[in-house]
């Protein structure tokens, strides 16, 4: 008889606990949400499609050389948007080269990128020292990470072109028939 009573009491306790548990129960369900951010590498020179003209000034006095002091232009700006892959492409560089045309004899064309104007965000690139343009690509900005510079002039890197006499000894190479149009190409390259 005592055993039966014990069993009944156990049943009552279990039922009581179950009923109490059902009075306040936490229940959980879940699902995933996902966003995929793609690789981006876009570069532009602004104003778009601009052609700049640089040349030395004729001398004012007989016997003077032509004057290269004003043979400069800083009207162009480089904008870019970039997303790197932290493991596959940790950074990018911007290279510059002459891809069409030949520089007139006796002259050098140089380009210098200024520091980013700060209109965008992220890891913008660092400008290198002035580059003497050639047909071989050279870094003009390095260490571009995931960033954007803002678009249009006054955003990104201001580019200053300077035309100089390559050396006084090369003055004899100057030829006004050499006036030409060059295409300068900027490339955002993966590292």
């Amino acid at each position, binding site marked *: *008889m005592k055993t*039966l*009573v014990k069993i*009944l*009491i156990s*049943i*009552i306790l279990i*039922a*009581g606990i*179950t*009923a109490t548990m*059902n*009075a*306040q*129960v*936490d*229940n*959980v*369900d*879940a*699902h*995933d*949400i*996902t*966003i*995929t*951010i*793609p*690789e*981006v590498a*876009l*570069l*532009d020179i*602004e104003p778009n499609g601009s052609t700049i003209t640089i040349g030395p000034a004729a001398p004012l006095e007989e016997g003077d050389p032509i004057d290269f002091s004003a043979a400069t232009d800083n009207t162009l700006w480089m*904008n*870019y*948007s*970039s*997303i*790197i*892959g*932290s493991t596959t492409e940790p950074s990018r560089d911007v290279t510059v080269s002459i891809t069409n045309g030949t520089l007139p004899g006796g002259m050098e064309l140089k380009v210098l990128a200024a520091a980013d104007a700060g209109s*965008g*965000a*992220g*890891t913008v690139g660092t400008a290198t020292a002035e580059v003497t343009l050639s047909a071989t690509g050279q870094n003009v900005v390095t260490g571009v990470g*995931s*960033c*954007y*510079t*803002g*678009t*249009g002039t006054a*955003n*990104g890197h201001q580019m200053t072109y300077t035309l100089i006499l390559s050396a006084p000894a090369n003055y004899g190479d100057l030829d006004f028939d050499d006036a030409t149009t060059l295409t300068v190409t900027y490339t955002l390259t993966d590292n």
Partner: protein
Amino acid sequence: MKGIENKIRHLLTLAMFLLSFSTLFGQATVTVWGNWRQNVEATEITNAGDDFPNVYESAADQSRLRVRRQPTSQLFPWRIDVRGDIVTWDNRLEIWIRRTNDGISITPGATITGGMVYQQISIFDQYFFEGNGSIRRIALQYQYRGVSVVIPAKTYRQTIVYTLTEL
């Protein structure tokens, strides 16, 4: 001897009542359907120097949630909390959530309040909305905020966890 029999009878009656009670009133459950996958396209940047749109929004009924307890004829007060369990994430990204409808009542007279304004999901449980009775097809909408090119190219994922508490 008769006294003992009466005691046993009373104990049996009490046991049956409690067992019936526990069986009759089942556990309230929350069930949610519908993942959200947003692929940001590189072509969304049309000008070099631009950023992605900052906000991406899901469909108004991207996920649907049901709160139910047997018997479904009975009203019972409840609350839903929400949190995000990080799988892969960047802290510059934010997830926001809101409820976009009142669902369909299973229990006559069921009610639902709160959660109609976007709120940011954090890694901690926080109040989302509450109600009374069983309701199905409660529509949920999400936003990603802070999307930018400054965030490395990658797939980011969180598990959104809904916790139902009977009040």
